[in-house]
């Protein structure tokens, strides 16, 4: 195997950019939703829960199509974004990041919610008796204790984003340098004669990226878990 070509670099860079932004942008919302689902009681909670999980069970193409309807330049949200802020997400890398974030969202929420449910809420009330207001309790007790869940959730969402295909191609198409992420590039090469070798090279890169992410998160989760359990990492 020779050095990577500029096109390949482009696809890798774009994939990482889209996935990382998708993860980063959805994290705060995922924490909030996970807190709601783990702690709050409100009418319609099971419906809310189902809606959050929808991207997990719907065909990705359907999710992409809904995104196009809502966020496209003529869609209700997309049109408003363009007229108010001059922001367009359809057929842009930002749109790809949104598609990735939406597809990874249920996985992220699930992981975070699970870790919230395992923490002992009595430790939080201990913090309250020591003078901490709810925001401080969240920042100094809850958040550090759910760190392993946060990392797991981010990894799952990141991995899901790296592999995202259906929603992306439906929502933002496959534009080289803008929305053509690794899976789209691989698919593209398989559709042209003589593209097999390129498709294989990119596939290997995808394997390496995913494995790398998995290993890094494994180490981080182990360290975070040790810290939360009170052992010296």
């Amino acid at each position, binding site marked *: 195997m020779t050095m990577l070509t500029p096109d390949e670099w482009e696809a890798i860079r774009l994939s990482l950019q889209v996935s990382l932004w998708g993860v980063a942008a959805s994290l705060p919302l995922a924490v909030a939703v996970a807190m709601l689902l783990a702690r709050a009681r409100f009418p319609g909670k099971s419906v809310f829960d189902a809606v959050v999980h929808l991207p997990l069970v719907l065909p990705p193409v359907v999710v992409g199509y809904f995104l196009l309807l809502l966020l496209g330049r003529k869609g209700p949200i997309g049109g408003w974004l363009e007229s108010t802020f001059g922001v367009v997400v359809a057929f842009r890398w930002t749109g790809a990041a949104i598609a990735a974030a939406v597809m990874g969202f249920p996985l992220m929420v699930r992981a975070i919610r699970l870790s919230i449910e395992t923490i*002992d809420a009595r430790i939080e009330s*201990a913090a309250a*008796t*020591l*003078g*901490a207001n709810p925001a401080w309790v969240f920042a100094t007790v809850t958040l550090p*204790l759910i760190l392993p869940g946060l990392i797991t959730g981010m990894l799952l969402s990141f991995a899901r984003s790296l592999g995202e295909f259906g929603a992306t191609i439906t929502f933002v198409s496959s534009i080289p340098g803008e929305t053509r992420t690794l899976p789209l590039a691989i698919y593209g090469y398989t559709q042209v004669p003589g593209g097999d070798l390129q498709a294989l090279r990119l596939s290997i890169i995808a394997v390496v990226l995913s494995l790398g992410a998995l290993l890094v998160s494994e180490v981080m989760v182990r360290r975070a878990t040790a*810290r939360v359990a*009170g052992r*010296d990492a």
Partner: protein
Amino acid sequence: MLEVAIRHRQGSFRLDASFASDVAVTALFGKSGAGKTTVVNVIAGLIRPDEGRVVVNGQVLLDTARRVWVPARQRRVGYVFQEGRLFPHLTVRQNLLYGRFFTPAADRYAVLDQVVGLLDIAPLLERRPAALSGGEKQRVAIGRALLASPRILLLDEPLASLDPGRKSEILFYVERLRDEMRIPMVYVTHEIEEIVRLAERMVLMSDGRSVACGPVPEIMARLDLKPMTGRFEGGAVLDAVVAAHDLDYGITTLAFDGGELQCTGVDALPGERVRVRIRARDVAISLERPTGISMRNVLAGRIAEVGAQRGPEVDVRIEIGRVSLLARLTRRSVDDLGLAAGRPAYALVKSVALDHRSVGYA
């Protein structure tokens, strides 16, 4: 200094408790499920009762009638939980300083070095809670509560999860705290031994109600409260002063209002004030002064009260000088001897029944 009145319903559990106290250590005593922890949670602000009033050092923390509700974080009520509840992700030092960070500078009176020294936790500072033993965890939990400079310290069965050796270790530190920090404490327990060692006043709780409140010896001597103070452990508590040690035989003589008691295995210094618990089952009664007997404590007094005569056992209260002893006898003996209020009698107590577990520093 402390005023509590609470009415609260939680499912089928009803709590109706009220008491006041102005002493260093107030014990909340009762069986598990009596509502002790709920009372403490209300004082701390972790439970908002249906009706209630809580005043600490003149500060109204809760008054439902006047819609006063100070949230837990603003109460400055130190709380030592049964299970410690240390922050697992922080070091001991960070745990200790957690509450201090939130205490307004003007209200801070506790100093890290002082608290660390008091509780002997200096070697633990850089460790994490998982690396601590049960006793160490509780000491850190006490230190953490103290360093928030609380108005009052609540200890909810802090010894419950510890083995016997660790228990007396923590008791020692709580005593030290009481004597050196001068901070009022509410101490929850279902162990009479701990009350005898620590508390001046006790509140007796049963089925969600505060049944009695008063000085420990007074409450412990009341025959009508026996079902609630516990059958096996029940007995009188009296204040005494160490009069002398017989080093040859290891016998300590304690002087109290009404006579002297000889006991074994007590290491208090002559002149020290102690509190002795004499279990009712360790006391016998004789109508005449017995001779040729091994029991070293023969106390002349008068029968003051004969308890309810149901079942095989009867509790009898004997007044010796100004203090009361309780004796648990068979109903048969009470009938055979014709024991009745007003009769002179001798209370007999074995010295070996009074050991270090029955004696606490007042």
